[in-house]
């Protein structure tokens, strides 16, 4: 069970409030798009869910346990926005990077190398990077790197996948393929997905729920409801931040 529950989350950088009293519950199998203007606290909220930063007030529970107690290998897969500051020129091959998702939690001596190789190949095929297996990740395009990072996260068999702007800086076709991939993973494997995105149209069309935040939670509900009731207002709000 991978229910994510945020209770009265508050976070501030020095005196600047980034997240103000957000409470919401994400159910097992949900695909949630987190949208909002620049500086709304979307990435901060995702980092709080990931357990990377501690909220000033409030609590995050995953499967009924506090995030800091619940965190174990493979529970959460995380693909940050500026992943791999060091990715440029990084010498690991795609296969080596994807395999990391599997081997991290297993002692070197206890690994079944055949199984690791088999699952790694399967994950690469799933995200469509199997042709690039021997290429170094630092030599790939942004979209290809993003798929490799998703494959690595998936290799750990996570119950919850957190993605921060997975399509930023990626061309239209590549970003469409990433959304399609996430939608398929959510439907076929039942992985709970929380994705921060600027691309409201695309994100809302693939997600089943939408969380709109602008420091506070402005909307949380089904994407259909969001589409029906906020169609015009959201554009104004998105561009003006009002």
């Amino acid at each position, binding site marked *: 069970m991978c229910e994510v529950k945020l209770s009265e989350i508050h976070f501030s950088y020095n005196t600047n409030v980034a997240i103000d009293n957000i409470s919401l519950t994400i159910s097992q199998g949900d695909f949630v798009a987190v949208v909002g203007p620049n500086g709304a606290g979307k990435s901060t909220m995702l980092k709080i869910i990931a357990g990377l930063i501690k909220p000033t007030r409030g609590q995050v529970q995953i499967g009924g346990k506090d995030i800091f107690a619940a965190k174990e290998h493979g529970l*959460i897969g995380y693909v940050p926005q500026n*992943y791999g500051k*060091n990715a440029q020129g990084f010498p690991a*091959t795609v296969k080596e990077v994807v395999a990391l998702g599997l081997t991290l*939690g297993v002692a070197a001596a206890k690994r079944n190398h055949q199984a690791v190789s088999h699952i790694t190949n399967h994950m690469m095929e799933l995200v469509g990077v199997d042709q690039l297996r021997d290429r*170094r990740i630092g030599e790939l395009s942004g979209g290809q790197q993003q798929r490799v990072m998703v494959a690595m996260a998936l290799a750990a068999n996570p119950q919850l996948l957190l993605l921060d702007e997975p399509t930023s800086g990626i061309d239209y076709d590549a970003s469409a393929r990433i959304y399609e991939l996430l939608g398929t993973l959510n439907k076929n494997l039942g992985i709970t997905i929380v994705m921060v995105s600027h691309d409201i149209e695309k994100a809302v069309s693939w997600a089943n729920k939408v969380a709109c935040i602008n420091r506070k939670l402005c909307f949380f509900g089904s994407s259909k409801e969001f589409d029906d009731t906020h169609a015009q207002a959201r554009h104004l709000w998105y561009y003006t931040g009002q």
Partner: protein
Amino acid sequence: MEFFQYDFIQRALLAGLITGIVCPLIGSFVVVRRQSLIGDGLGHIAFAGVTGGYMVGLYPVVGALILTIAGAVGIELVRRKHTEFADMGLAIFFYAGAAMAIIFSTMTRMPSTGLLSFLFGSIITVSLTDVITIAGAGTLVLIIVYFLFDKLMLMSLDEDIAHVAGINTGMINMLFSILTALVVVVGMTIVGILLVSALMIVPVATAHLLRVGFKATMGWAVFFSMLSVFIGLTSSFYLDIAPGGTIVMTAIFLYILMTIIRQYIAYKEKRKEQSLSFLGDK
């Protein structure tokens, strides 16, 4: 060969080859973490440890080990506190090490021959105790890198992903800093404090030119490093030059050679592509 008959050469070779293995092992992670100058910073602290150890009557290598590990822990703590100016902390420790070394060496009037052997490396001063210390430290580094390899690799790529995956990044970063300090002290006996960092970086840079995977890059870096140590020590003996210079110049020569080979291969590939497209046009 006359070269291998001397006991001091056998000791220097053994210590040198162990150094040649562990320096690029740690260097492979140091390079991709964009911390290539950490070895230089720690080298200066090690120099302060050598002179400080001599001042208080401690075996210089032990003095270097204590102060370098303390320095590595300090650098890591400053890096965590000031992530936006991580290299600033390294610079401060770098200068503090150099300043302390000057103060201690002036206060103790350490003999210049001893100082020079630590600065530039030496093949005649490698004692059996040094070999045993280097072998012990080298084994420890090998074991830890073997068990933490995947974690270190992911942390080098992205620390946040590693943290969310359940890795204790704080503890492993600290351990890695201590290992780096250990390797600097291991390497200073043979290559010298001034150039120990080069043996951590240059063979790795050469291996990167081969454009192979992470593990293969590491393997090639160890090969280039051991080759540099062997050729450097041999030429040091015959030319009567401090080994630090000959080892590092060999490593740099290999880097230049590999760069030329790489350029040549790229040129040939381009020519082949042009020929194929020309034939295609026809």
